[in-house]
């Protein structure tokens, strides 16, 4: 997966428990993203980071927080998991944040499947 590792790959948890998903990259890319993928919705952006300690909200950020203390790691935390957060979560990286000229290339990890019972 081009230097992106997501962990865990599968997790089953109960409603109300905290969950942290980890994304680790070895590409030294500045931009990192967390998406969730649900049937019929495609991929939706949760949060993204444009540098160490620099993060911003995406389209569906409620109930999620992120942290980036090192270039290579981007953590996604569900403080109190709910059944609506059952999904497949993808981390992506890009070297540039330029979405508009065609220079941006998103490289995705293999995904983390989370089930909240």
């Amino acid at each position, binding site marked *: 997966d081009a230097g992106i590792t997501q962990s865990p790959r599968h997790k089953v948890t109960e409603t109300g428990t905290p969950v942290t998903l980890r994304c680790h990259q070895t590409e030294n890319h500045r931009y990192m993203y967390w998406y969730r993928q649900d049937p019929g919705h495609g991929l939706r952006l949760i949060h993204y980071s444009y540098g160490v300690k620099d993060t911003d909200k995406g389209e569906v950020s409620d109930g999620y927080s992120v942290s980036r203390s090192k270039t290579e790691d981007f953590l996604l935390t569900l403080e109190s998991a709910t059944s609506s957060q059952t999904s497949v979560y993808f981390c992506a990286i890009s070297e540039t944040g330029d979405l*508009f*000229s065609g220079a941006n290339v998103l490289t995705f990890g293999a995904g983390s499947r989370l089930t909240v019972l």
Partner: protein
Amino acid sequence: TQLLEQSPQFLSIQEGENLTVYCNSSSVFSSLQWYRQEPGEGPVLLVTVVTGGEVKKLKRLTFQFGDARKDSSLHITAAQPGDTGLYLCAGASREYGQNFVFGPGTRLSVLP
């Protein structure tokens, strides 16, 4: 409400057939990307188009960006079982900030 619509949602064809899938929006996009995703894996970028009317070819795959930059199509010639997967389009627009908007995808199955 989906910002990007894709059609058809599902497509099952025989090896050797041609097919076209579509990506449509009421919004104008500065750039549009197509990805293919296989089961258990993340999406992989196929192509980026940025100019209205632009056509790009990638072996048996032909991508076109609409003149008004609101729609795109992906045509596959002589489909092979290896083309099976979920095809996603994603658009970038200053209206949506630092966010690629993804369509729900077309799930293609090519039978041998």
